């Protein structure tokens, strides 16, 4: 090799290495808790994991949570119960739009505080219309309810024919036997096809690294529900499956001050939701798109807000 060719090739090689290093330099910003781990990279799809694989995955997640939040979570993989199909019913006559469900959901399900991610959106709708285009997310009043509006919370409808599942190119989201559509956050590639496919605007994307204050972390976690998510994955309402698969009610229901939210097993003839579906005139949102939601809305026969108290003959509000 001549001195000239050595210098020529050497300069080119040095420049190329420097360019490669510079182009990879954004990786410096990845902090240690997001770091690449071989066990995560080699982790199987949720449905292909056996008990031992799941145990090691849960152990890895526990360590990651402990490292970032200084607290060891109670994380497990909860399987659906036999003979259970979850259904949600929401009484629009009673909902007053106080948004307590929104924030109870954030607290229960470890959604990002900054940037803000919320699963439930509450629309303020003009009375006499069900045109969602007229709904307003950003209503702000001293108190609610407003007499000229009604309030319509929307979250994942856990469709029986879910378009979000059909479009997922990697099968990172699927419908479980109890009707809950779940996401494997370790399998999601963040393409956001599901977000585009959902007619109910139920899916949320982590554009940046989600931030949760250390003292606000809910340590009662499960693999498919509220374990902390990472940047670049989708998330959505999962009917609080870490609670509901253990027999409890979802967090949004427990906090509702008016009892507008109803939840239960539709296959149980004695359940509240079954009785509501049998005795009330329920409807689903965007029935024409054929998604067969498991989330039903209903109104009471009489509208208490229009009954002026105490001038009416019967103070029946709400």
């Amino acid at each position, binding site marked *: 090799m001549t001195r000239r*060719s050595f210098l020529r*090739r*050497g*300069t*080119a*090689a*040095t*420049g*190329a290495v*420097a*360019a490669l*290093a*510079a*182009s990879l*330099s*954004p990786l410096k910003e990845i902090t240690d808790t997001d770091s690449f781990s071989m066990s995560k990279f080699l982790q199987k799809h949720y449905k292909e994991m056996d008990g031992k694989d799941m145990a090691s995955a849960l152990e890895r997640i526990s360590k990651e949570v402990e490292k970032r939040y200084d607290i060891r979570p109670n994380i497990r993989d909860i399987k659906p119960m036999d003979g259970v199909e979850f259904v949600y019913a929401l*009484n629009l006559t*009673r909902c*007053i739009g*106080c*948004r307590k469900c929104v924030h*109870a959901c954030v*607290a229960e399900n470890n959604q990002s*505080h*900054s*940037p*803000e991610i919320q699963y439930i*959106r*509450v629309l303020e709708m003009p009375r006499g219309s069900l045109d969602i285009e*007229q709904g*307003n*997310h*950003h*209503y702000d009043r001293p108190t609610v309810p407003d007499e000229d509006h009604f309030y319509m919370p929307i979250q994942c409808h856990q469709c029986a024919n879910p378009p979000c599942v059909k479009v997922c190119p990697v099968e990172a989201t699927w419908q479980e036997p109890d009707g809950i559509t779940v996401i494997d956050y370790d399998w999601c590639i963040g393409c956001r096809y599901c977000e585009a496919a959902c007619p109910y605007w139920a899916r949320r994307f982590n554009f*940046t690294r989600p931030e949760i204050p250390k003292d*606000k972390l809910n340590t009662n976690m499960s693999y498919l529900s509220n374990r902390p998510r990472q940047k670049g994955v989708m998330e959505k309402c999962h009917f609080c499956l870490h609670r*509901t698969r253990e*027999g*409890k*009610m979802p967090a949004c*229901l*427990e*906090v509702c*001050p*008016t*009892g507008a939210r*109803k*939840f239960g097993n539709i296959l149980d003839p004695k*359940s*509240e939701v079954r009785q*509501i579906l049998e*005795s009330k005139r329920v409807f689903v949102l965007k029935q024409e798109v054929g998604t067969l939601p498991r989330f039903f809305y209903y109104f*009471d026969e*009489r509208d208490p807000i229009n009954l002026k*108290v*105490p001038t009416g003959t019967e*103070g*029946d*509000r*709400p």
Partner: protein
Amino acid sequence: MARNGSKTKPNASAGYFVGAGFGCIAIVLYIMGPSVEIPIEPGIEIDRAEIKPGIWRVAMTDPPMINIGTLNQRCSDCHSLFTTTRDPDRALNQHTEIALEHGANDGCLNCHDKQNREMLALEGGNVVGYNQVELLCAKCHGPIYRDWIKGSHGKTIGYWNTDLGESIKLSCTQCHEPHHPAYRPIVLLPGPNTLRMGDQSTDHGEEIDERNPLMRWRINEDAHSASDSEHGGDD
């Protein structure tokens, strides 16, 4: 370079430029690469007391107790000593904190039993304890009572699966203040800040906000269609 198969010698100095070019790109990338800041609206922290789950208000126990001074007193401690007239217009000289706003139901003894103040009055002189207050309410609110029995009115907390834990169906007075059964207006929690495109806190859809990029597009389209119609376009 080896076009036509002829062995032309490459320009000997080209290699230096390749290296220098890569070096320049490296410097530019290094300076510009990681400095991109993604604007993130800080999240709104909610006080945990605002989202406390469970029972909305504390109902009367059975038998009912009332705190007078520092002592818990049974109703009959006082009411066994004197009688009450059924006169709705008479001002109360005790229980003055109660302002009865229950529609047409404006008399104490419509609900409270005259003889035994620790019971509630049903029709025909029958009485029922405070732990079965729904039977009293059902005297007037029949359809609501039916809905409450079936579960479409009211609130059930605890466990939906009674094999695994207790299901607690709240009674009427665990949500409604019986002397003012209508819910008072509630202070609402803050709305989302990530979806906000301009101030939409006022009525939606009447004014076009110029800060909103989609609305800017609509302004242009409106202006465009307006100029079209001026030129006689009637489609």
